[in-house]
């Protein structure tokens, strides 16, 4: 079974589209868990309106890291994927990502391609303000990776003290633990750009990327020192 965990904080506008993109996956044995991170908008109703077998959990507002960790605790799948409440999966995303993991038990993670799009309902003036590459790129981010649950447990959960970069931090910790990953050359994620993107709203939180980088550098140096005879 694959567990799909979607943290949602005031995501009423787009989460219906996100859930429907999961329901379109050509894949059986799927479990969808939405973790409402203390939303004050109509997220709950939007989740219900999207239809499909979705488990809805709610926590007091504590950030995406805590929400994802809670989702994992309540999940049952041997494979786990995370998706943000505004992004969309391509229909064959899970089929493409799960194939190598099911073939090779030594693999811990599969990564696919991502492309960005500007949310179509935005006014022209806003739409044209976004600068982004239209190319399909490999990006290790929420929504492009499928993980083996046992490897997730070995690396540990997302760091709740990070307000940004917690997914990057997790990937870097996974690298340090030697989690083996494979890249799948198929488009899996369509990332929505809009004015309420976390990175747009919470620019102050970007400083946390510096902590993530510093921690990764320190881990590498400790590893290098340990590797010396």
């Amino acid at each position, binding site marked *: 079974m694959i567990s799909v965990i979607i943290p949602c904080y005031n995501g009423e506008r787009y989460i219906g589209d996100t859930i429907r993109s999961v329901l379109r996956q050509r894949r059986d044995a799927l479990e969808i868990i939405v973790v409402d991170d203390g939303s004050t908008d109509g997220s709950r109703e939007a989740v219900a309106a999207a239809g499909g077998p979705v488990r809805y959990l709610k926590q007091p507002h504590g950030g995406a890291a805590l929400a994802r960790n809670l989702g994992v605790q309540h999940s049952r799948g041997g494979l786990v994927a995370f998706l943000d409440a505004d992004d969309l999966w391509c229909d064959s995303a899970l089929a493409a990502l799960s194939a190598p993991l099911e073939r090779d038990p030594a693999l811990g993670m599969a990564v696919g391609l991502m492309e960005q799009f500007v949310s179509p309902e935005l006014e022209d003036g806003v739409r044209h303000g*976004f600068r982004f590459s239209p190319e399909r790129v490999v990006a290790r981010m929420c929504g492009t990776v499928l993980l083996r649950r046992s490897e997730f447990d070995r690396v540990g959960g997302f760091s709740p003290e990070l307000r940004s970069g917690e997914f990057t931090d997790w990937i*870097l910790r996974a690298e340090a633990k030697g989690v083996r990953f494979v890249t799948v050359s198929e488009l899996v994620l369509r990332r929505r750009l809009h004015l309420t993107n976390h990175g*747009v*709203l919470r620019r102050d939180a970007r*400083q946390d990327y510096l902590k993530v*980088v*510093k921690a*990764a*550098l320190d881990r590498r140096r400790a590893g290098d020192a340990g590797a010396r005879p």
Partner: protein
Amino acid sequence: MKVDDVFRVNSPRVIFENIDGELILVHMEKGAYYTTDEVGAALWDLIGSHCTAGEIADALASQFDASPDEIEAATRAFLTRLMDEELIVPDEAADDRATPRRPLPIAKRPFRAPGLQSYQDMQDMLALDPIHDVEAAGWPVPRPEDDPSISTRSA
């Protein structure tokens, strides 16, 4: 580069912080990150206080033990490198800028020309921040209901 050239950090594309004694820089648009050494970090602090290239070299000469010529050459080279990496950009000298405070001439520390280490291995993860060209008009202010931790402020 002239001695009275002034620079500023290439914000908001560049973020930086001194964590546990190590200066970390990230260029969010390029997805590159950088580290430097003691002299580089001291030089970076001086850029932040709007010093001219000449004042930066003078201030470093008061803290580190080397000939003024050596320090000036190293300062120019490092500023050029930072410009090439788009970590700093030229700035207009502000009229009201303060003259940098000279530290008391205590024992000078040994000088080594500052180095900048550049890393690209997290490019796919660091260059993901959405970029929206509203910087001149101000970043969009979230409505208070979007985030309880942000209070309303006027435009």
